[in-house]
């Protein structure tokens, strides 16, 4: 059954005037929100040449650093984030730069080897802001260093739940834009209930990548789904990252025939799993719900998706919603992204790069308006706390606990021939309140507090 129409606050029906005032009115903020048409026809937005606000805004360009995977298996996620960040920087520079005059120069370094050294090198080179990383391990390795170096870092990914619960309990300079693990897992738990109905879900299985990320996702999903449906976990498989043979897990699922199979596989593993699952007729006996399956949108071939029954989340962004037809910012972002090499369709990882840069840039812009001068690192950090901003994915808020909160999207994963890639069909939206614990409350505690 279909969810009700998305609420008015979602970008669909917002009026132009209210949108402009909501995004803080600066040229950069508008450009990043994707409302260039509003700018082009000169709607009464404030002049923003920056010079007249009396404060001194330095001339030289802002040196920014991005830590992401540029090659190897995780490259399929990392390159999306890189292109997203590059587009955001390009739009900022085209809109005149931060405060009307400071262009951004983005230096991208591969996270694959010695990420700690690469990050420290950014600081030594005097970067004013750093973005990334992608992997949870690197994020929990770098977050403490960010607090020590006192330079703002807006995490694109590295969505491990415990980052701001255990690793860096009271962050000052470390922020994270993308929905973190618990948000995307709870989204899929709710999506399963939406699609199949709580009372039809009595048994659940999991096939997750055999490392910390996969284990965390399965643990949270088990907690969430048992609260929502009282279902019992009948099988948990953890294939090695990049495994060539998942037949054992698929055969176990065929024998257990669970109502729901949860998976947080991503990149190349998705195609291997889906292909071998359909070869073993797994989809006859179970429905698959995955948090990051859609990250393989550009890679999974048509014959693999044929005859499958898969629902995937897309974290805080899906290019197809609202439909490209009537949502100008979405249309422009889609066209710009697909023009960049390495991007068949922009996935949520694309938005993690774009959104992280946007969060920082709009916060600095707001600080310049309030303070009348270019803000210090501390001032930028304070401005980012509770900072609301727009991207073509809709409205986002950087909460007090430094964790970004945005709507989440989920839908049926089908192959689209003219697009040449997979897309989501019949998309549901879940607001941040439904999927994220209130600031300061630990994820598992929040899940425990749910009534049965």
């Amino acid at each position: 059954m279909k969810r009700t129409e998305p609420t008015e606050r979602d970008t669909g029906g917002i009026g132009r005037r209210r949108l402009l005032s909501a995004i803080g009115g600066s040229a950069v903020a508008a450009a990043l929100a994707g409302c260039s048409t509003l700018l082009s026809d000169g709607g009464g937005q404030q002049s923003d040449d920056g010079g007249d606000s009396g404060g001194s805004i330095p001339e030289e360009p802002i040196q920014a650093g991005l830590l992401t995977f540029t090659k190897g298996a995780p490259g399929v996620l990392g390159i999306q984030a890189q292109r997203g960040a590059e587009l955001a920087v390009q739009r900022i520079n085209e809109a005149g730069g931060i405060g009307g005059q400071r262009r951004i120069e983005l230096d991208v370094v591969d996270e694959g080897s010695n990420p700690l050294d690469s990050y420290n090198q950014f600081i030594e080179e005097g970067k004013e802001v750093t973005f990334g990383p992608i992997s949870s391990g690197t994020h929990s390795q770098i977050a403490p260093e960010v607090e020590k170096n006192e330079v703002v870092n807006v995490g694109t990914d590295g969505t491990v739940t415990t980052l701001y619960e255990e690793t860096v309990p009271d962050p000052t300079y470390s922020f994270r834009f993308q929905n973190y693990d618990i948000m995307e897992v709870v989204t899929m738990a709710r999506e399963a209930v939406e699609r199949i109905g709580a009372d039809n879900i009595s048994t659940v299985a999991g096939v997750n990548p055999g490392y910390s990320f996969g284990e965390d996702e399965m643990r949270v999903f088990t907690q969430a789904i048992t609260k929502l449906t009282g279902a019992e976990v009948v099988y948990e498989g953890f294939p090695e990252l990049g495994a060539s043979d998942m037949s054992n897990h698929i055969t176990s699922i065929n024998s257990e025939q669970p109502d729901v199979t949860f998976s947080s596989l991503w990149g190349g593993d998705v195609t291997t799993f889906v292909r071998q699952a359909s070869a073993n007729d797994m989809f006859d006996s179970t429905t698959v719900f995955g948090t990051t399956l859609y990250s393989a949108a550009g890679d999974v071939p048509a014959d693999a998706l044929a005859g499958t029954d898969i629902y995937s989340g897309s974290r805080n962004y899906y290019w197809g919603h609202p439909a490209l037809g009537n949502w100008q910012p979405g249309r422009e972002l889609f066209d710009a992204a697909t023009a960049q090499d390495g991007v068949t369709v922009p996935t949520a990882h694309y938005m993690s790069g774009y959104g992280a840069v946007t969060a920082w840039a709009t916060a600095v812009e707001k600080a310049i308006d309030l303070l009348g001068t270019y803000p210090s690192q501390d001032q930028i950090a304070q401005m980012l706390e509770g900072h609301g901003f727009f991207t073509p994915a809709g409205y986002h808020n950087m909460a007090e606990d430094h964790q970004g909160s945005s709507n989440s999207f989920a839908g049926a994963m089908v192959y689209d021939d003219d697009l040449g890639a997979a897309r989501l069909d019949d998309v549901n939206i879940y607001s941040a309140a439904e999927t994220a614990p209130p600031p300061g409350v630990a994820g598992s505690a929040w899940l425990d507090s749910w009534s049965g």
Partner: protein
Amino acid sequence: MPERVETDGETRYRFLGVEATRREAVALALGVVALFAVPDVTRLSDSLQLGVIHQGLLFGFAAVGLNLLLRHTKLTSFGHAAFFGTGAYATAVLAKYAGLQSVGLLLLGAIAAATVMAALIGALSLRHTGLYFALLTLAFGQLLYAIALGQSALGGSDGMPIRPGPANQPLLLGTTFEPAVYQILTYYLTVAVILVGLFVMYRITQSPFRNALDAIGQERTRARFIGLPVRRYVWAAFVISGVYGGVAGGLYAVVRQYVRPEGTLFFLRSGDILFMAILGGFRTLVGPLIGGVVLIFLQDVGQDVTQYYEFLTGVVLLVLVYGFPRGIVGSFRSGGVVSERLGQLRREPSAVADWARSAVRTTERKAVESLSSLRIILFGVD
């Protein structure tokens, strides 16, 4: 002060039992000065990273330990990351679960853990030699890697931080420091440990124990028949080399304050440790240390130079195997190919021409050979 000693017509200097010719003494002094100057030198240009050189020295130190096995007992250990990783993870576990903060205690823990692990793996592998020994040590290394990856208590693939106590940092002499200062102080701690480690290894190579290991390495049957309980000696050498790996791993954890299975236990790290010993010159004492710095530097700087940095490292290793089999240090020492070629050049500079000619001739001959083999293979062996 060093006393002069005349032995068989060559003036040698003896200081604290370390005997060296004049050239070796000068080289040694230069080396120690270089070690201490690294932090300032790396401030000059940012292509020279203190962190990278420091990591090279740490892995190089593990290679010095491995070299005791490789050079004397001629046993190729392809699982030395097992001890490096054990040292690193022991430090992380002590910091996280036991709340140990002082660097000294953490390192002692690393040494103890590595000793126990080396004793265990040693006891199980010392019946083997040659490729069996290499593959078995590799298997044990990968077993530890799989366990670290699988255990959430050890942080799984995300690894573990080393941030004990309120200061979120191991204590050096009881106090905490700014990150930059901490990095330099831990560097000097590493230099101190390296100098002590090299001195101890030097004394071992001058001791009767070294003769026993050489005997076992060169003719194992005869070693049994001159009364050596071969397995106990190999086991002892294995433990000593494991301790060097454990200290290096412990220091690595203290310096980087984070350990992951990929960076400390994976078999490619064991490969690195083995190949840096050979790159530096495994017939020498200091070779593996220099090999460590060069290999890690190559892998790190290589990435900034080109995306094909693996190819670059591969070619360097090829040049090593064919051009400088004695490794960097070995080639410069007398009898090494570099010192001989330099001698040739000094005598008659035109030598370069015929080197080139001979090089061209050999590659030509090789190409013809392989083409004829290919032709015969495709159309049947005559």
